[in-house]
């Protein structure tokens, strides 16, 4: 839809009222007298008097009339401004008024140009010639019509008397000056993108309409504004900072794969590569969003946070992202799960947000939707940004990563006919996803589960076990570890297979081994069979041959047919294991895990037990 219509017509008609309008004069062109000319000054005075506005406003308004083509200048046709002096103007015929629904037609313009050319050959200006040629191509099929019509219109015009002819020509020329602006002139009719709603629609003014209008204006007022100098400065700063990282402007190491056919660049910069490139790690120091949007960055950051016992912040943030961008059907239960895990009083991985935000969140959770946790997520984001981020950059964890980071050697590979390297395909996305799941499970295994019924209540809502060896190269997905986590050592997934699933003593180096054993037992009793962790433990899962894979550890097991949701809530949601290779866990899976210890959500009634557990 075009923007709101100009409502000048009524004013135009008033201006030309024989009694109350502007007084007219006669324009003399050579020997002909053409009536109905008005001076610029008279227009100005009339507006001043009629509308009771300031001089400046009146001049501006009058100028707009000319620019939009309601009035056209006689002596300087191309100068569409209102001169408050004796310069002459005339009113445009209503046929040529700018009408909302009818933008000027290409065919009409073609006819006009053809007519002009017929009248005097070669009179077309450069830009008009360009338009003409372009139109000839664009509407070539109509061209016979265009020429024919131009001829007829020309002939019809000639039947009129000279003064009329002159006036008609002026009118038409003025119209096209407004609607097909010559280069260098301001195109007033340019309005940008079409609007989504029709601003000219006559809506009945109901309460609802007004209510929406008020809301709209309130939000408009609240919109933040930035001075253009500031935003431009920001753009410049961004460009300077990222210049060296831009593969087009600064090249990429080892080489541009599109040119040399060498995909090493992509391999070195894979999402969760074991050792990232130097440039990438340096980018994490640019600003917090660079760190948090890079999965590898998040992984490294999480290591640091765990040291500071605030790992749940990032986990919460990731859970919120998963909620926002995940399945619509799972939104409600995900939101509840997140609440129970992170926000509820006594939650296992409780995060610290202020009372107001908590209040908003709980209120919103009555009617959960994707963005219900936005307030809390933003709070935690800002917390991490302002508090942890600074320390992270100074931490040995980051510095170590920076030191380890590689700088690939530049290579100039020629892909000649001979010695052309064998192109292999990148790993299948299915396999990559499975790797992510595995890594997530491993991650889950390193997090302490404090809500075990046998644990003393006095145990602080503590953070993950910091097993000495952090798994360095887990293909972490963006989502968070499973809520059903176990105080297993991180090496559980890489363990040699125990016989079956009996809760044997784990060769755990964790500081909490007694807890670990107990928890593991509980874990098993809860029947988290769907966990890929267990799948990995089962001896029956063969390793699936695949392409290039991150070194995850020795016993990397992959189950090609597992329907596991790559989400925060993998255990609960996709209960039936369809794996043909791991029959062990599939049958008893579903019904057991629901009996996990629940945190009560304040908006639920206690009868809902056993449901969203």
């Amino acid at each position, binding site marked *: 839809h075009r923007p709101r219509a100009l409502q000048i*017509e009524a004013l*135009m*008609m008033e201006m*030309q*009222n*024989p009694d109350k*309008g502007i007084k*007219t004069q006669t*324009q003399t062109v050579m020997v002909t007298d*053409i*009536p*109905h*000319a*008005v001076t610029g000054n008279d227009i100005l005075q009339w507006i001043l008097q009629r509308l009771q506005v300031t001089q400046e406003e009146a001049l501006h308004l009058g100028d707009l009339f000319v620019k939009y083509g309601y009035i056209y200048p006689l002596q300087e046709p191309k100068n569409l401004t209102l001169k408050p002096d004796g310069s002459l103007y*005339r*009113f*445009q*015929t*209503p*046929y*040529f008024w700018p*009408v909302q629904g*009818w933008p000027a*037609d290409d*065919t009409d313009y073609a006819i006009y*140009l053809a007519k002009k*050319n*017929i009248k005097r*050959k*070669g009179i*077309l200006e450069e830009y008009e*010639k360009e338009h*003409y*040629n372009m139109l*000839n191509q664009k509407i*070539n*099929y*109509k*061209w*016979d*019509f*265009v*020429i*024919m*019509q131009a*001829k*007829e*219109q020309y*002939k*019809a*015009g000639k*039947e*009129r*008397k000279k*003064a*009329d002819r002159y*006036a*008609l020509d*002026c*009118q038409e020329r003025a119209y096209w000056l407004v609607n097909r602006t010559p280069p260098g002139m301001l195109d007033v009719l340019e309005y940008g993108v079409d609007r989504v709603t029709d601003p000219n629609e006559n809506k009945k003014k109901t309460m609802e309409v007004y209510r929406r209008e008020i809301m709209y204006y309130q939000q408009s007022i609240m919109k933040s504004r930035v001075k253009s100098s500031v935003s431009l400065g920001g753009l410049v700063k961004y460009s300077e900072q990222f210049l060296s990282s831009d593969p087009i402007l600064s090249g990429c190491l080892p080489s541009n794969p599109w040119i040399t056919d060498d995909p090493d660049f992509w391999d070195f910069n894979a999402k969760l590569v074991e050792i990232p490139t130097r440039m990438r790690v340096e980018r994490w120091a640019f600003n917090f969003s660079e760190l948090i949007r890079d999965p590898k960055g998040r992984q490294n950051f999480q290591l640091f946070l765990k040291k500071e016992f605030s790992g749940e912040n990032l986990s919460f943030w990731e859970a919120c992202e998963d909620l926002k961008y995940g399945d619509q059907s799972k939104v409600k239960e995900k939101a509840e799960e997140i609440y129970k895990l992170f926000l509820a009083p006594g939650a296992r991985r409780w995060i610290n947000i202020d009372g107001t935000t908590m209040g908003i969140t709980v209120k919103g959770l009555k009617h959960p939707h994707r963005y219900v946790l936005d307030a809390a997520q933003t709070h935690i984001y800002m917390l991490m940004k302002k508090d942890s981020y600074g320390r992270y950059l100074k931490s040995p964890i980051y510095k170590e990563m920076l030191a380890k980071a590689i700088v690939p050697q530049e290579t100039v590979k020629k892909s000649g006919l001979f010695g052309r390297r064998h192109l292999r395909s990148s790993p299948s996305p299915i396999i990559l996803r499975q790797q992510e799941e595995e890594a997530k499970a491993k991650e889950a295994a390193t997090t302490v589960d404090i809500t075990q019924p046998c644990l003393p209540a006095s145990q602080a809502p503590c953070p993950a076990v910091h097993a000495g060896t952090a798994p360095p190269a887990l293909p972490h997905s963006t989502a968070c570890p499973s809520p059903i986590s176990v105080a297993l050592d991180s090496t559980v997934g890489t363990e040699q297979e125990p016989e079956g699933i009996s809760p044997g003593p784990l060769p755990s180096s964790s500081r909490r081994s007694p807890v670990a054993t107990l928890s593991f037992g509980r874990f098993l009793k809860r029947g988290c069979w769907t966990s890929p962790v267990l799948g990995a433990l089962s001896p029956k899962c063969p390793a699936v041959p695949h392409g290039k894979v991150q070194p995850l550890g020795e016993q990397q097991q992959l189950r090609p047919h597992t329907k596991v949701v790559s989400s925060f809530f993998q255990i609960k949601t996709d209960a039936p294991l369809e794996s043909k290779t791991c029959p062990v866990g599939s049958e008893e899976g579903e019904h057991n895990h629901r009996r996990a210890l629940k945190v009560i959500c304040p908006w639920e009634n206690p009868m809902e037990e056993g449901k969203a557990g």
Partner: protein
Amino acid sequence: MAPGQREACRARGTAGRCAAAQAALCKATAGHRLLVLQLGGSSDSLGLREERGRRSAEARELITGLRHTLLEGLQQAAAGSEERQELEQLWVLFLSALEHFLQDLRRAHHLCQLFSGQRDGTAPLHTGLGGRRGGGPTQPPTALSLEEEVEEVRAILVEMESRVNIPLWTVEATQPEGPSSSMAGVAQGEAHTGHHCRVL
């Protein structure tokens, strides 16, 4: 004359008649446009409006006739024949003229609504044009109101577009292009394919 030849003669006649009618239509629409241009202006008057109505009626008559003849011609013409090509060219011409005319009718409708309630002789707007006496066709004005006119032509246009399946881009202009070339003399258009066109 052999039957084929007879048909050919008739066909050429069809195309020729259509071409003549087309030229008349262009003239009528051009005249009509000139009148619509003046609506609401200083030369607007009851007389002008009547004249516009007469021009419009003339145009519409031509349109109905052309439509009938063209349709018939296209149905009878053998596919791929030269005279078929001519008819297709005329068809596109006709369609363009129809669109153009309809646009002017709509504008006229809009303007008449804006400037209704005309007192005879007094015009509200000072556009510099003087009134005109007489001229134009002398038939009695038809009783159709502007809305009805618009509707009638619109319906014809829709019908034409749906009944005849001639892709517009298959027609090439016969007129020379470019403002630099001579406007006098019309070169014959090159042959173009129209095999896939058919009249439904």
